[in-house]
């Protein structure tokens, strides 16, 4: 055990951190955002972010930080340099997770309480559309070309493909129980949808919506019901798929070509969301029950460090300086 700790400490020393940047972590219970330096992995500051901050993302230029303040029923927008709140965006009730159009506008927000996806213009601060979807919408993914936004509804157990110009649902795919997250590959050829209670990740062909493969998980000594996939991230070359497995305290590394699990990485407790830095050198995980983030070296496929953040970290985004 000590040897393992020493080895990872050494590894941490040897690995050179990425370009300077900031890791922003939303703390659901702490009502704050923790800012971590992506070079030194030191906590820079922690600032208030409204009530129950969950979903978090940044504008393509890295200047604006968007935070779903779920209990305030708004999206709060912060300056990533000064941490000052600039304004709020109308989000509809109980915003939990959202996705930004690749162009930086608009923002597609899942309203868990109202079975809606709200489309909000981040420049005019107005709602462009409300799209009725299944029960308890949560996961939001967008195709790389920005033509389709995908919402997953947790009780209806579907991925809804919404045309971003007509705001109409054009396709539905039934997946396993409680889909939490939707993530396209960079080439737009695959869509990953995690089912938290079903314990699977469906690999969907967005063209037609058929499920091409179902990723399942198995860790000796861990009760299968604890293997609950939530956050999913894929390297831009499509080769490595990382899946956060909730209360099993593990992140699965899945081969992006064979869809076989290659490795399970032990991280903090109740890991939900994941984010790469800009160069995809490191992957950050939020561990809600141990109040920390784990940092995974993507090339070495190792956990290299954990950093204490605020109370019950939920979401994470990395912004280059």
């Amino acid at each position, binding site marked *: 055990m000590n040897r393992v700790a020493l080895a990872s400490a050494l590894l941490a020393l040897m690995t050179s951190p990425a370009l300077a940047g900031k890791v922003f972590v939303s703390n659901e219970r702490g009502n704050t955002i923790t800012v971590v330096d992506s070079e030194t992995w030191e906590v820079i500051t922690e600032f208030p972010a409204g009530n129950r901050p969950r979903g978090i993302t940044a504008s393509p230029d890295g200047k604006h930080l968007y935070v779903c303040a779920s209990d305030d029923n708004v999206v709060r927008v912060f300056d990533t340099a000064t941490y000052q709140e600039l304004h709020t965006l109308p989000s509809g009730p109980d915003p939990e997770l959202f996705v930004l159009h690749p162009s930086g506008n608009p923002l597609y927000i899942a309203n868990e309480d109202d079975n809606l996806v709200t489309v909000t213009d981040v420049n005019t601060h107005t709602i462009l559309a*409300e799209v*009725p979807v*299944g029960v308890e919408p949560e996961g939001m993914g967008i195709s790389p070309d920005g033509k389709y936004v995908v919402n997953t509804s947790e009780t*209806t157990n579907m991925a809804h493909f919404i045309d971003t110009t007509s705001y109409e*649902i*054009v396709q539905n795919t039934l997946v396993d129980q*409680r889909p939490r997250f939707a993530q396209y590959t960079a080439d737009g050829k695959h869509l990953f949808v995690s089912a938290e*209670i*079903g314990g699977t990740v469906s690999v969907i062909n967005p063209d037609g919506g058929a499920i091409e493969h179902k990723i399942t998980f198995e860790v000796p000594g861990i009760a299968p*019901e604890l293997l609950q996939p939530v956050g999913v991230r894929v390297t831009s070359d499509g080769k490595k798929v990382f899946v956060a497995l909730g209360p099993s305290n593990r992140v699965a590394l899945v081969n992006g070509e064979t869809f076989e699990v290659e490795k399970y990485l032990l991280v903090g407790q109740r890991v939900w969301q994941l984010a790469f830095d800009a160069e995809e050198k490191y992957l950050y995980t939020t561990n809600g029950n141990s109040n920390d983030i784990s940092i995974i070296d993507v090339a070495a496929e190792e956990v290299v460090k954990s950093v204490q953040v605020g109370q019950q970290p939920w979401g994470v985004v990395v912004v280059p300086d």
Partner: protein
Amino acid sequence: MFRLALLVLAGLLTLAKPSQAQEVKAVVLRVDYPALLPVSRLDLRPDDLGFAGAQLATEDNQTTGQFMGQTYVTESVVATPETALAEFERLQGEGLRFFAVQARAEELLAISEAAAPDTLIFNTLAPDTALRSAECRGNILHIAPSRQMQSDAVAQFLIWKKWPRWALIHGSHPEDIALAEAYRASAAKFGAKIVDEREFTDTGGARRTDTGHVQVQRQLPVFTQDLKEHDVIIAADETDVFATYLPFHTWRPSPIVGSAGLRPLEWHPALEAWGGTQFQNRFEELTGRYMRPEDYTAWLALRVLGEAVTRTKSADPAEIRAYALSDKFELAAFKGQKLTFRAWNGQMRQPILLADGRIMLSVSPQEGFLHQRSLLDTLGLDQPESACIAFAQ
């Protein structure tokens, strides 16, 4: 904005592929038994008890159905113990085949007996362990947990706490005696010791009176005075006669568990974990009140139906039953893990919440207990313990 939403909804409806628009009709049959008012007026029964949960499930099913080309209709029917069977037969005569029945064992078994070969019954109330064993019926799926599941849930928590010395106080009605028996079995199963035991006899009368607390405060200490040394008092009072009075009125300072204090529940309106908040919000918006366990079990019964219809694309009762009992079936139901059925007796596997009046304190099965198949099978009758043969393949 609202108009846009409507337009989009219309677009979405046209998307549904009604190759053959399938209608799924179900009944919630609730039998109301003559009963005294509850000890606490906070526990007064709302008129729509159970029905409201079924309504929410129907709406949830319908939202999915609009994408799948299915429509869901649920009828809510109240009966008395005397009219229950006739109501069931009338509805069955109208062609209805899916019944969520909120009744005690006697009426439930009579209904099961009168059921057509293709009728499927969901038991949303009767906790009798025998219904999951020697008295099981192949046409009943048990949504409600058994008494044994409830007592095992409490027992695991007490063992986890290292509080193995129990004083058992049970009521005098058959249900209370059956519940006491379940606690005795749980003690034996998990290695606790019942150090003392006594019956609180129901002598009748009203349960709440003006200044009633004065006598309660004088009498209960005396009633519990000479209990042998114990860690906790287990109250087995399914009929709501005395348990609610027990906390703080014991001779010595004793935690109360079971029918008061820390209670095993299917649902609690303060549960917020596992997406529960959104579920509670939807229910409260629909009904203007908190969700009761009876609403949750009714919701669960109809969601089992909805989920099976969605996956099999069939509304045939035999197919629904087979699918529900198969390895393929799983249902997310705001309890942090999938709910499934025990194929040997039709009992739904589910975590049991442990709650006091205000919040959820814990959930069983507890950490550290083990089972070769599913940790949930540490609650209630496991396959070798069940004498049920109606489900044998």
